[in-house]
Structure formats: structure tokens, C-alpha cells
């Protein structure tokens, strides 16, 4: 039996996060690669771009201004409108 509890927050964020739909294939899809500007993130993403292109995806490259701060909202918007999926290169 489920328990129903009351939300103690201001309810400005969803109570549950719904996962985005997964891609069924890469062919013809646009994949964003986001470099957060940690050292050698570009090396990793270069490799990934090569593999994704081989599998028929087109790739767009993005970079955050700095890894110390969240991605600016404009950048997030750009990726969301231009890409079907995004891969973020975290850590170094």
C-alpha cells in the first residue's frame, strides 16, 4: 500500500523527476557534446565524436565558460533546442 504524504515545500520543483525518453537509434540524430572545461575533456569528447559520427549521428560541440559554475541558461537552452541528446564530459 502506498503512503500519501504532504509536500512540505513551496512546490516550485516537481516532486518526481521524469526521465527524458531514451533514443532508440543514433542514425540521423543530433548529439550534443558538452565540455565542462575540465582538463583533457576535449580529448575524451573528440574520441566520442568520432565514434558517434561512425554510427550515423551528427555531433554539435559545446563548452561551459567554467566548470566551477552551472551552465548558463542560454547554453542549456541552445543544447535543448538543437540536440536530441547530450553527453557531458564530467571531471578530469
Amino acid at each position: 500500500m502506498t503512503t500519501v504524504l504532504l509536500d512540505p515545500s513551496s512546490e516550485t520543483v516537481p516532486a518526481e523527476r521524469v526521465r527524458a525518453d531514451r533514443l532508440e537509434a543514433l542514425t540521423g540524430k543530433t548529439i550534443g557534446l558538452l565540455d565542462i572545461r575540465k582538463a583533457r575533456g576535449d580529448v575524451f569528447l573528440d574520441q566520442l565524436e568520432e565514434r558517434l559520427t561512425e554510427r550515423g549521428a551528427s555531433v554539435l560541440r559545446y563548452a561551459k565558460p567554467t566548470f566551477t559554475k552551472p551552465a548558463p541558461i542560454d547554453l542549456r537552452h541552445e543544447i535543448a533546442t538543437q540536440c536530441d541528446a547530450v553527453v557531458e564530459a564530467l571531471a578530469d
Partner: protein
Amino acid sequence: MSSSPSDSSSDATVKPPLPDGIVAFVKRDCPTCELVAPVLASLAKDAPLTVYTQDDPAFPDGVARVDDTDLAVSWHHEIEAVPTILRVEGGQEVERALGWHRGEWEALARVPDLGPGLPELRPGCGSLSVDPSRAPELAIRFSGSTLKARRVEIAELEDEQEAFFDRGWTDGLPIVPPTEARVLRMLEGTTRAPDEVVATVPPDLAPCTVEKVAINAVMAGCKPEYLPVVIAAVEAACTDVFNIHGLLATTMSAGPVLVVNGPIRNAIGMNAGKNVFGQGNRANSTIGRALQLVIRNVGGGRPGEVDRATLGNPGKVGFCFPEDEEGSPFEPLNTMFGFEAGTNTVTLFPGEGPRTIVDQIARDPESLCHVFADALRHMLTPKMVLAFDVILVVSPEHSRIFREAGWTREDLLKRLHELTLLDGDDLVRGANGIAEGLPDSVRGNQVPKFRPDGIRLVHAGGGAGLFSAIIPGWANGEMGSAPVCKAITS
């Protein structure tokens, strides 16, 4: 001979009508109901009688019974005891008798000589509709929920504590899960409507209703009777003067410190005595926590985000205590804010953890004042002046010294302000080998450690121990915060 509960309206919130005549409410698990069962059977011969039965639809014999095992009729007609008999005319209840009382039953039924073999009087039992284990759920079912908060479904295999931790809704300690029944019970602690907005809570500037305060108070572990204190504390915290946003965002250690005055302290069982700042008393421990949960959950004020404290202090989980007014030689704290002594108030002070002052030798006020002043002068650093207020908490063994000498609060505060005047030469940058300090312009002047109303006095603590304490404050005045005292209303 009996009908089922589904005969009544399908909308559980609609009050079911009663048939005209005599109406009785009984349960088999009540010796008085068993006792009067023959009386009801004989009454049924002389008058139109309907019996609502709460536990056993087959009880009692020989009467027109209605199954009220779902308690809808009993709840809506506010039956508090069984047996209860009513006289209903034109669909309206006109008379009511509780338990068995021959004279009352005869008068109500207009039938003489009822239950000749029975005692004159026999009290009844509690109605199942007011049974504490059922009442909250019945209230939800029959009054219809007026609560507006989003419902969060926790699956059977999910742990509700973990679900709340995962959503960032706790302070790192477990919470009492806020079920609708618990929140409704909490709301019984106030006469204010659940949808009334109490305050706009920083940093998100989110409107906070009485219902949201109640949800967080449940989570903190409060009892319903604490709710008015929590509501007043939320109101006080969210004033411009108290500036909870700044207090939250500061890198300094302070947080809201709550001091409760007035008869409500004793009514809700707060501890102003031994271990007053410590653990062990439910009201002391949960009221301050409820305020902090409101700031976290409704306001969005979370450590590491808008809360930028370098060190913080353990009291930021919740720091609330009452003043020992009864044992104090001084006027209570709330009179420093224009309230009459005896008024229920909560004072919010932007403060950090208490530091003990030890003096086991002083037997005269002057000597003790010097010790207090020493501690006060060193608050934060001796060179930090005027920008920070303080609460001085005097315990009973120390306050006795002032009582015996006939000192008032004003006498004590005046002397402390005199003794905390500092020599400007000791405060300038570089003085005493310390780089920190004031500009050279104070050289040759005396500088007060505290602004004129910067020392607040509270009496609290156990009866044994020659100790007092200071609770250092945070940046005072327009740019920072000032203590705010609010009346607690029901």
C-alpha cells in the same frame, strides 16, 4: 431488520438525515448499552425508534437497527458517548440524553416507568466516532480534505524517511512523516484557516500558509499545541527587521534563537530549568526545528546554497527555550519590547551558541557584574564593538545575588554598559599586537561595546550551579538584523 451504511448518501461529506422519533446510538462493546438493550426493545413498542449501531449490526435485538459501523451518522451528528438518545422532530434534533439516566430517558421519550429493574443512573462509554485512534481518519473521510498541499505518494517498498531525505526536505535528521491525518491534527492547534498566508519566506520569497507551517511542524516533531508558537516564530523571522535572508546567507555562525515568554511556556510543557539549552524536552527541541524546516523547505534556504555559513552552529537545527519567569527577580524579556509581563510571546534573536560564564565566588552584584562584563567584552573579539547585540542568560544562583541586593534589571544593565565601555587606545588597529581593530580616530575616546539596547536579559537554568551564559548576536541594525518579539495568538 437492519439496513446497511450504503443506504445513506454516497457523498461521505454530506450530513445524513435522521428519521423522526427517538433515535439511539449504541455499541455492543459497552456494558451500559447492553444494560439498556431491553429498554430500547420495550420503547420500540411505544414510539417510533431507530437504533444506530456502531460495532455489531446485529445488536440490539428487537429494534429497528441501522448499521453505522462506518460511523458516518455518529460522526456527522457529533455523538460523543453511547448510549445517546435523541428526539428528532421534522428532521431536527430537539433533545439529547447521554448514558442511561431514567428520568432523562422518560422525559425525552415521553414514556413513564422505563427500565424498572435498572439502576437510576449509569454513565455510558465513548462513541467510536471520537475514538482517538479513528478520529483523524474519520475527519478526513467525512469533512472532506481542505488541505491544498501537493500529495507525494511513497510506494510500498520505498522508505518514507529516505524519500524525504532524497528530496532534500529534511535537515539531516529523521522527520515525522506528514500524513494528512497528522497535519489535520496539527491544525487543531490553531484557529487560523489552513490557507491563510502567514508570511513570505526568504530566500525564495515563497508565500507560506498555515498548512505549510503545520506540515513542517509535524515533520519537526511538534505537538498541535506548539503550533501557535511556530506560526508566531515564522511571522517574526520573515519581518524586514529580523531579516532571515541575511542571517541565512551570512558566513557567520548565527541562526535564529527563539525565546518564549508567557503562560504558554508552562501550558505546552517547556523546560526553563535544568539543561535549558540542552536536549530532552520536546517543545524546546522541536519548535525551533520547525521554524528552520519552514525556512529550508518553503523558503528554499539550504546550507551550502543560500546558507553560506563558514562554521554554523549546532543550534541551527533549532534553538528554542523559554524564560524562567517565575523564579526571576527581573522583568521578563518581552517587557523589553513593550509587552506586558504575562503576555505569550516569542522573541527571535539572531544568535549563535551559548557560552558559559563561571563565577562561584561572587556574593555581591558588583563583583558578579565585573565577571559578566569580562565575558561580554571578549565576545567575538574584544575589538569588535557596537555591531553585535547579545543575550545575557542569568541562572537562578546568580540572579539570587541581585535579588538579595535589591537590584532591578535596569540596575544590572546600566552597570554592564558602564563596565563594557572600552578604551579607544586598546581598540585601534595594531593595539596589543593585534592587526584587527578600529581606525585611529577612536584613539583617546571611550567606545561602548554594545549599543544602548544591545544587551537583552533572560532568566533561565537549573537551580544549582553558579553559572550564567551569553548568546552572542549577529550584525545588528539596518544592514543586519535586530531581535523581533511577536505575540503568540491562538
